[in-house]
């Protein structure tokens, strides 16, 4: 696949929606302008990745992490993005934690059921209560996205 990085575009529909929401009502955008913005967004990601990677390498790490990207934003003079990005990251971490606990819970239920089905009918109710206890702060494990 001889795709240049610049050809990896983000979906047009999403880009268009983001643009329209950023602009006042009644303002539209030409096709050329929209596709240029889409390409600009791809270039932005590539540039940010490269910057972030520098920070990772400085820290002698092989995996890009969130703080590398935040540092890259500052480096690229997009400091104004840093605060909203941090907020989004918090929300994302909460969501991920919730998902993880939900799937771990399902696994526990499954295991318990295979052990002894009869005794656990009452325990299932307890498990439901456990699922609501999502407030404990655990250390996030980084899940690596590898090739």
């Amino acid at each position: 696949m001889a795709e240049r990085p610049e050809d990896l575009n983000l979906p047009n529909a999403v880009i268009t929606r983001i643009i329209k929401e950023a602009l006042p009502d009644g303002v539209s955008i030409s096709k050329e302008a929209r596709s240029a913005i889409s390409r600009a967004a791809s270039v932005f990601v590539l540039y940010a990745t490269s910057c972030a990677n520098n920070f990772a390498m400085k820290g002698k790490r092989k995996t890009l992490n969130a703080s590398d990207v935040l540092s890259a934003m500052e480096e690229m003079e997009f400091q104004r993005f840093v605060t909203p990005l941090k907020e989004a990251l918090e929300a994302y971490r909460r969501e991920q934690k919730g998902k993880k606990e939900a799937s771990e819970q399902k696994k526990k239920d499954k295991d318990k059921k295979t052990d002894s089905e009869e005794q656990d009918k009452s325990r299932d109710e307890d498990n439901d209560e456990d699922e609501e206890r999502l407030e404990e702060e655990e250390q996030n494990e980084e899940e690596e996205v590898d090739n």
Partner: protein
Amino acid sequence: MAAVAVGNGAFQEEEGTGGDAAAPQPHAPTSAPGARLSRLPLARVKALVKADPDVTLAGQEAIFILARAAELFVETIAKDAYCCAQQGKRKTLQRRDLDNAIEAVDEFAFLEGTLD
């Protein structure tokens, strides 16, 4: 779950304010339904990140933040380009508005020569 207020409509299904006619939905997410924190599909962002030969691995959080940053970037550049269109009293953003914004705004300097 507390509502995520990041200043934009994170609920894709409920957008009534946009007014765009029948915008096709992008690929359905495999992650949790309901409040989505980024609209750009993480898979595409990941593809862009992997295109960099110097990058070995990228954590999921990093991909997510890059996606979110790209959205913020799109909003920002659209608004800046709009300022130029407004001066010309036009209601349609043209390519030249974008070019003007890129020239005028220092942060967009990295885009010069890349959009042709």
